């Protein structure tokens, strides 16, 4: 009978391991490896770095990294162009209809190298790990899937529902009606 008590915790353990770990320092070779994305020639989509896959895609699944990403989003002025996901001069993320794809590699490349339609390149300003953290966070703004690990809201004026409240918009893969 005790087993019944222990089982949920054991299952929780399996789910919990990855999502809570806090890696505060990446070894330089790992970080260098994380930069090696193989992008399709049109700049959209591609294969993530081998290291990233080997690590278990931490930047999409780890709550701490997602939170770090959220802080970077604020610190580096992302809100200036994309607001809190609703967009401004830059496109909206909330609707989930993304010009350059919503896979992590595309987002990573968009942040690192910029896009010709106005997105500046941030590769100069951020380390590879920071770009990955930002990538993971930006992905959560979109409506593609609800995650078990989600960043939460900021202690600031709220302009939209928090990311941890499941997909923002339904029918995410349809372009906005207008």
């Amino acid at each position, binding site marked *: 009978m005790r087993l019944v008590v222990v089982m949920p915790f054991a299952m929780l353990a399996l789910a919990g391991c990855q999502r809570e770990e806090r890696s505060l320092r990446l070894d330089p070779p790992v970080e260098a490896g994380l930069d090696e994305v193989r992008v399709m020639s049109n700049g959209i989509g591609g294969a993530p770095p081998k290291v990233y896959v080997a690590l278990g895609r931490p930047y999409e699944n780890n709550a701490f990294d997602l939170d770090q990403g959220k802080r970077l989003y604020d610190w*580096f002025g992302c809100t200036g162009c994309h607001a809190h996901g609703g967009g401004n001069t*830059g496109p909206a993320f909330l609707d989930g209809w993304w010009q350059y794809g919503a896979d992590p590699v595309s987002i990573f490349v968009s942040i690192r190298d910029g896009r010709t339609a*106005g997105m*500046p390149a941030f590769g100069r300003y951020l380390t590879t790990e920071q770009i990955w953290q930002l990538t993971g966070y930006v992905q959560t703004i979109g409506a593609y899937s609800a995650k078990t690990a989600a960043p939460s809201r900021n202690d600031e004026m709220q302009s939209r529902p928090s990311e941890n409240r499941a997909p923002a918009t339904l029918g995410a893969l349809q372009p906005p009606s207008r």
Partner: protein
Amino acid sequence: MGELHRHPQVIRFAAKLRGLTLVGVLAASSALAQSDPGAQLSASTSFSALDEIGAGNVQRLTGGPVFATGRFGGQAGAPSAAGDLVYIETGFPNAIFALELAQASPSVAWSYAPEPDGRARGLSCCGRTEFGPVLSGAKLYANTLDGRTVALDRRSGNKFWETKLADLSNGETLASPPVVADGKVLVGNAGDEFGARGWIAALDAESGRILWRQFSTGPDAEIGIGPSFSPFDPRDRGTDRGVATWPPSAWQHGGGSVSGRIIYDPELRLVFHGTGRAAPWDAQERPGANRWTSGLFARDPETGQARWFVAFGARDPYARGGVAQDVLLDAPWKGSARKLLLHPDGNGFLYVVDRVSGEMLAADPFTHTDASPEPAGPGAVAGPVPSPDENVVVRDICPAWSGATGAGSPAFSPRTGLLYLPVSRLCMDFEPRHASYLAGTPFIGANIKVKPPKDGTSGALVAWDVQARKAAWSMNEPFPLAGGVLATAGDLVLYGTLDGMIKARDARDGKLLWSFAATDGIIAQPATFNSSNGHQYLAVMTGLGGGFGIAERNMLDPLDQSAGLGLAAALSRLPTLRERSATLYLFRLP
């Protein structure tokens, strides 16, 4: 009624009005007015002397869409007409079309595609983006968003010269049309949302050579402040105020761009231009008076040296800037004839300035506003202007950052003595946030939710009696008036709305005389001209965009109430676009 003179570049009207004699109205510096008899519009007063279409016959107007540009960007520039050609410059990518009106449906005489740098699109923010084109002699001048000024042959579209002025990597763009003044082309930059220092530059009209460039922040030498500078407000005298009123180094990314229209007064040989908001919007990060942002300069067009400066609103804690469109007027003021400059500011005050001395004569609120004008103004509220603390939300501030007016030009009719102001009645919640400067990225520092007023009417057309210093009448509109207003000698006030209505009101009492539903929102000022067949045309460009139309254009998600700096949610009731191309509408009497 009036007679249009080609030279000198002055139009004079005389009118008797309620026992009051207007000495005259001066319309300066309009490339259209000064250079071409076919263009009967004064850029300074937005008043057309044409009167074929009038209050009595406006209901009979017929017409509709005649030319789709195929460009999706917001269309803020009005068409210009000269001879039998009508010129249009679209929003980004700033294509220029010359249309022949001779046939039933216009045909393209020539077009010019500047192929601007796509990065500029990310830098187009917040304010008005209007490009021109501007006609002067045989040339047509235009700015492109990516920072170039080009001079084309008006007839053939061949390029004479092209000069790169703005540095995109600093966030600078060009978002307003050039102005031709005395053989020079004057260009101001945009980009204070990116921390770009404002500047105004003069190019040689023939060669495109840069003659001078003066900044809005920094040491006197870079601002053009020298011995000839004498501001009326004693606090603005002294050396290097553009440095001393900022924390160390903050002026280097202090904004104050010259993104409004520049006006040239050939009689006084002065150039007037507003300076934009200080950067960042979070006022706590820039303690001090932040000269010379959010104000108005008068400069000598020869050297760019400043003559005087007036500040609008102290500290500008809510980022309303000072680049709204001015109107030049020669009128009696308190009994004596004066050369006036009317500046309806984004903060909701109408400033009356003596444009010779820079003395602020009056500051009157023309709509609901929480702002206080710069304490130097007569009757102004003195006292400290609190700047909100970082991370503290200040609620229900009116007007919103987008300004009580300023997105479109006002019009002044000498026949009525009224100034027609396109007004936005939006308010906002504002939370200053720490902003870190990264060249070429937004330097705003605020969370903003914009909201319509309680009664839901976000806009208004206010007819302001300049002499009586109060509104003669005011008509509420469901949406902010983002496009300019045109007043004509036919006693009409014409304007387009964000939801695509073209409206004509009686200039005297505001009664709606005629309206037409276009298939797209309008942010451009209507234009009117006589075509070669001698008939008066009314021309309107549709194409929703700019600050108010950004939600539609960029497909923003109003679920995020801060999208589009708050405007997306505030204007979420705007009808969705039916037409995705900026289109020219033409109307005439049958």
